[in-house]
């Protein structure tokens, strides 16, 4: 498929997410236990899922970079880390906003919150490392190793609520004996997760394309100066 078709699909997804948010806020019924405030789940959980999916994406681009030493993997890794950082921050902020009315605090050093905070710090570290090193093999190796470490944090975040006593609720979607959620809530949540994850991939694709164009301009300019 051509660039414009993919781009059109990405824009359609962005509109679809707005429609899903409209349903999340105004159409779906309130939760029996939490009332209206539970509606933040339709943004918080999909943002978290997207940040985890991007961490695995970063694992893929890092392994590809380490194996092939291709400069293309550098752009892909940077784009994934940037959008992954954005979605991790969104997860932390929406979780904090949800925490205040439900737990009574904006933040607590709970295992789930702390491990997610570590993910944000690791993403930020990856971006700092990328920016502070010159392009080439050294940068591919350093950021590649950090990219692998970032993916290691994801299973720890997921299991944190079962490994340690936490304020954060245990898994309610993927658990033994099936989900504890009402079918209506669960189906809308799954659609929201898929849609926001695809939006995150669209943003990664656009950013990687911009980085590649930037690099091409740089190479062309340097060649002309050299000639």
């Amino acid at each position, binding site marked *: 498929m051509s660039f414009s078709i993919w781009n059109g699909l990405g824009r359609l997804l962005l509109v679809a997410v707005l429609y899903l948010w409209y349903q999340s806020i105004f159409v779906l019924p309130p939760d029996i236990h939490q009332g209206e405030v539970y509606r933040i789940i339709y943004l918080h959980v999909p943002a978290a899922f997207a940040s985890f999916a991007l961490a695995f994406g970063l694992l893929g681009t890092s392994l590809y970079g380490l194996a092939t030493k291709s400069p293309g993997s550098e752009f892909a890794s940077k784009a994934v880390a940037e959008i992954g950082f954005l979605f991790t921050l969104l997860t932390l902020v929406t979780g904090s*906003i949800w925490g205040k009315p439900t737990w009574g605090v904006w933040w607590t050093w709970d295992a789930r919150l702390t491990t997610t905070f570590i993910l944000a710090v690791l993403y930020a570290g990856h971006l700092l490392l990328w920016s502070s090193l010159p392009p080439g093999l050294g940068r591919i190796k350093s950021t590649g190793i950090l990219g692998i470490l970032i993916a290691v944090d994801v299973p720890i975040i997921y299991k944190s609520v079962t490994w340690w006593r936490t304020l954060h609720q245990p898994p309610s979607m993927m658990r033994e004996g099936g989900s504890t959620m009402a079918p209506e809530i669960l189906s809308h949540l799954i659609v929201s997760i898929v849609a926001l994850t695809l939006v995150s991939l669209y*943003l990664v694709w*656009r950013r990687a394309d911009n980085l590649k164009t930037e690099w091409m301009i740089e190479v062309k300019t340097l060649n002309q100066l050299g000639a």
Partner: protein
Amino acid sequence: MGMNTDPWPYIASAYGLGFLAIYGIYVLLMLQSKKLKKLKIIAEKG
């Protein structure tokens, strides 16, 4: 949740920030893409 807490400011803040983050980044990426297209044409002309 405390029964006296009004949930709507929290819901509005969460979705408002979500909107700014996702659609804000999208707009910035589109603007960057437009600028780079122009620069690419200039670089190709030499």
